[in-house]
């Protein structure tokens, strides 16, 4: 199981990685924005992507639209804020599988990951 973390906050990436490791995912790659993620996905071939919405250079939604042109299967969890929640529908149309609203706790994130993987029938 390979997970890609896409977030401009190093702190959030670090702790997301720690949560993923705690629940048994050890193959993890990190990207600091959409552009960085696009340059890495081909080589890394993730099984799950945790995607922040607001990022410099290329935001999460733009990344998602580009990514979905070439990969429709890999599950993507969008990380959004309450203010952007109304735009979630746009993200779902663009191919997001699940979302989590900031601020969230590690437990919430863990639950969302499990939910998403179960939904797409991926091995957990």
């Amino acid at each position, binding site marked *: 199981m390979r997970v890609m973390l896409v977030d401009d*906050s190093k*702190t*959030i990436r670090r*702790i*997301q990685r*720690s949560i993923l490791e705690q629940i048994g995912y050890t193959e993890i790659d990190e990207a600091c924005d959409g552009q960085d993620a696009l340059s890495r996905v081909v080589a890394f071939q993730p099984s799950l992507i945790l995607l922040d919405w*607001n990022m410099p250079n290329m935001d999460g939604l733009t990344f998602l639209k580009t990514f979905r042109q070439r990969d429709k299967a890999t599950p993507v969890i969008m990380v959004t*804020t*309450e*203010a*952007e929640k109304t735009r979630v529908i746009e993200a779902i149309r663009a191919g997001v599988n699940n979302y989590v609203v*900031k*601020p*969230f*706790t*590690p437990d919430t994130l863990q639950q969302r990951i499990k939910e998403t993987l179960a939904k797409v029938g991926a091995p957990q």
Partner: protein
Amino acid sequence: MADARAADQPTIVIEPQRTAARVVIPIGADPELVTVSMLLSLARERGVEVGSKGEEVLRRLSERFRAERAPLNEVFAEATPPRHGIDSSIEWQPGFDPSHAGEAAGPSDPSSGRIDFYARTSFIRVHREDHVATILPATEGLDGRDVCGRTLAASAGKPLTIEVDASLARLDDGRVIAQLDGQLSFDGRRIVVNPVLDVQGTVDFSTGNIAFEGDVVIRHDIRDRFRVRATKSVTVEGLVDASHIECGGDLTARRGVAGRAEGTIEVGGSAHIGYLDEVSGHIGKDLLCAREIMRCHLFVGGNLVSDLGAIIGGCVTVAGDVRVADLGSGGDTPTELRLTKEPDIDSPEGKAAAEVRALHAQVATMEKELATLRSSATARTPTAAERMTELEFEIADMQARLKALGFTDPAVEEAGLAGLCTSTLTVSRMVHARVTLRLGHHLIVFNDPVKGPIRIWLEGTRDAMYQLGEGTPRSLRDMPGVMDRAAA
């Protein structure tokens, strides 16, 4: 006629100070008589010392006159001026010139152009064996000679009247080497390495932060946000504002420390302080405070003595005995005193305890920030949400680390450490209401004031005991207005 002939004769002219000699050959001179030997004779008659070079010049001139028949007036001999000696001087090695101390600001950030003026240094720091300067010796000089061969005396260079203190060694080749770590100073006459950094004024932008391997004495104050770090003691004669002091030895701040919730002290030895207000930190040995300890969060590794003072507000943890005039205040300020034996700071338990303390402090700070964000109007902005998530995660991460260390709750930690308590609390005047005392496993809450003198300690049976004046020792559970939760 005789005069006319004399006027047509070559002559030798000597310049003032005998710096040069010239030959003057008028146009009417007889070319047959203008020979080199005749010119040499004339020069020697005038006392001019003619060497081979001068003789060559005269030969050339006589030939030229004979060939050209034109008047000549040429220098044929010059004096050798004296070369005076050079005065002795001191040549500072790069970075050690005391006259340049304080010129350099702290590190700058080229991208933003910002300069850290807090990090500037106003003194020259040297380490043992540093080559700080070279004293160049005076030179003797070289005598000269005038055209008549007389000596032109050269003056010798003046010796340097610099005294090199015993804290430095002056080697035969002139190198000056520091013999100890310290502050280099030079007042124009004496070079000294002082093992004590003596800051004559206030620690502020004129001095920058202080970091010194040795003792530091500050004659005035320490301003907000400045840091003073010393491997040995720190003495502050003025007031300490909301700054950070870290020392391996004792800290003396007779006037006091006004921390305004941002002041911190980390003291390896004992602290002798006028008063402490809103300060947090750690004192390895004893704390002697002349007046109040107000709203502080401190750990004291030894005894706490404030015979005329009080502990008011905050939370003070003491490993040794406590002796104060008042505990709490007449305004019923919530005040917590913990008497606990903490393990040796260098032991694995001590290190774990220190880490636990640091983690708890970080968690508390983050929880405070999180609460502020949650209650603010901007809580729903993406930036605030992002920061809140970061904080949520950081807190969870730290709590996981605390769990890994075996401590999930500060109270559990304290209980474990407090079990080792052998301390005694002595209050000479009054224990005020709303004072909480953690003593071993006991959590003692004073709902009503208790007039002193009172002594409180743990009996061998682990009962919390008290004694009023010279009265009979009794169990605290029998004292009205006091709740002993462990006893309950």
